[in-house]
């Protein structure tokens, strides 16, 4: 392993960590502002111009607040759970190409930490490991709401892994590779996968809401029925890690959806790079948009939707794709 590669990788890791940790904070600002505007409110206004420094104020609060470990909890698991959520969220970013490769001072930079052959499998798998954060945190909390939330998290994530996997399977069959770079290159020649796989696109998108636990499927931390779910007993930076993990996941899945279905960064031009960022911004905005517009479903409705509607549709989609490819 030569030095240039090592230095490049370390720099990329640090940049991704810093950028997306900061984006998680700024994401909360956008979320609060956009939700407020959709509900005819103003949102944060008092800290800094237009409330922009609210992010900083929240960060200071999270970092300096006392880290309470309640006496009834299983302390080692309770302490490690938020780290799992945040760490897996950022680990998933390793196989995501955020931008097309570009040249700096004659050195070609690939803005992907590791272009591994099983990229999409790795991303989905590591994101699925993130489920251990809510699950272990909720079960170790010695709190009935946290326990309910943990049970729901296990049910939801396991169910929707099936939909995610089956929905991604049909595009994988067409592309013939698991690398997200190959997905991007395939779509340069054959057009966006959303046109040949519209159903898979919609199923994957729906499952992304369950994977990230966002509002129609927000039931693992539903404020109005189980307080903050698995986060009820957490305070300070441990809760903040859950938070960063959730928002980082939203950003990463907002990158993955356009890369798989909407042409990614295209042919690698500057325009393509901005197009990918634009698509990512739209999907992130859509997460906030649905939170303002849609009600939450009940856990049984969520299971019903997964096993009786989405999974059969995904299987049918895979079968039809297979037949079309065969003949």
């Amino acid at each position, binding site marked *: 392993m030569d030095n240039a590669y090592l230095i490049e990788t370390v720099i990329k890791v640090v940049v991704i960590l810093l950028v997306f940790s900061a984006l998680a904070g700024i994401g909360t600002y956008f979320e609060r502002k956009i939700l407020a505007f*959709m509900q*005819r*409110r*103003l949102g944060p206004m008092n800290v800094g111009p237009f409330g922009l420094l609210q992010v900083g104020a929240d960060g200071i609060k999270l970092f300096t607040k006392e880290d309470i470990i309640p006496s009834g909890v299983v302390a080692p698991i309770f302490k490690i759970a938020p780290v799992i959520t945040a760490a897996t969220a950022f680990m998933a970013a390793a196989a995501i190409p955020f931008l097309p490769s570009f040249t700096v001072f004659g050195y070609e930079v690939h803005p992907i930490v590791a272009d591994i052959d099983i990229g999409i499998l790795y991303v989905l798998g590591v994101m699925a490991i993130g489920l251990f954060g809510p699950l272990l945190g909720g079960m170790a909390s010695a709190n009935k709401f946290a326990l309910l939330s943990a049970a729901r998290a296990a049910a939801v994530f396991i169910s929707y892994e099936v939909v995610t996997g089956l929905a991604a399977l049909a595009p994988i069959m067409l592309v013939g590779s698991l690398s997200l770079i190959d997905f991007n290159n395939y779509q340069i020649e054959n057009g966006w996968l959303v046109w040949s796989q519209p159903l898979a696109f919609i199923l994957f998108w729906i499952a992304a809401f369950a994977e990230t636990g966002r509002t129609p499927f927000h039931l693992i931390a539903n404020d109005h029925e189980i307080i903050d779910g698995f986060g009820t007993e957490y305070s300070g930076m441990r809760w903040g890690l859950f938070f960063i993990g959730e928002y980082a996941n939203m950003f990463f899945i907002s990158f993955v959806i356009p890369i798989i279905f909407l042409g990614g960064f295209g042919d690698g031009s500057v325009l393509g790079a901005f197009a990918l960022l634009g698509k990512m911004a739209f999907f992130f905005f859509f997460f906030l*948009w*649905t939170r303002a517009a849609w009600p939450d479903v009940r856990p049984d409705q969520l299971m019903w939707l997964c096993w009786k509607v989405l999974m059969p549709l995904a299987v049918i989609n895979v079968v039809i794709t297979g037949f079309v490819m065969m003949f």
Partner: protein
Amino acid sequence: MEQFNNRNVADNGYYMVDIEDYPTDGWGQFKRIVKRTFRIELFVGLWVVMREMIKFDIHTISYPEEKMPIGPRYRAIHEMKRLWESDAERCIGCGLCEKICISDCIRMDTSIDEDSRKEVSSYTINLGRCIFCGYCAEVCPELAITHGGEYENASDQREHFIDYAGMLTPIDVMKANAQKEFEGFGAITPHEDERVKTTPLAY
């Protein structure tokens, strides 16, 4: 005021929402799901919030800088009015407010002054007990004890919100003819003059 006086809610654009019957059998449920899926009802909700965002018709009031006008019947901290003619306090010491106060928080002492007139030697309202029901203002025959509109009070005890000197209209406000009459319960209604009947003398 007109908008508050109109109690006829049926004319204000209210209508009954047309709610379909719930399906009772499996086929009905299936039909409802198909209908909801392909009428893309979810996108109606998305459009509504997006429309509100584009219209940007913000209803927030930035409170410390902006304030809503409060209704004339609002019952905040009490005020004691002065007579327009003599700038003296209006209270005649009749004791009706003390009598009617359901939380027993008004206390007054009266005595005979040097002109052999009844004077109020002390008048206190224990705001820690007061429930701001407005009976005292309603019963006062002189419109002397009333409720004001000052709702921004802060103290470690409610008793300290105001004392008698603070309730009384300041004398400089009085000199500037700026005392505001109370329009809440017990106050004279705007068209009272037209409704006054002469006392029948002959029976």
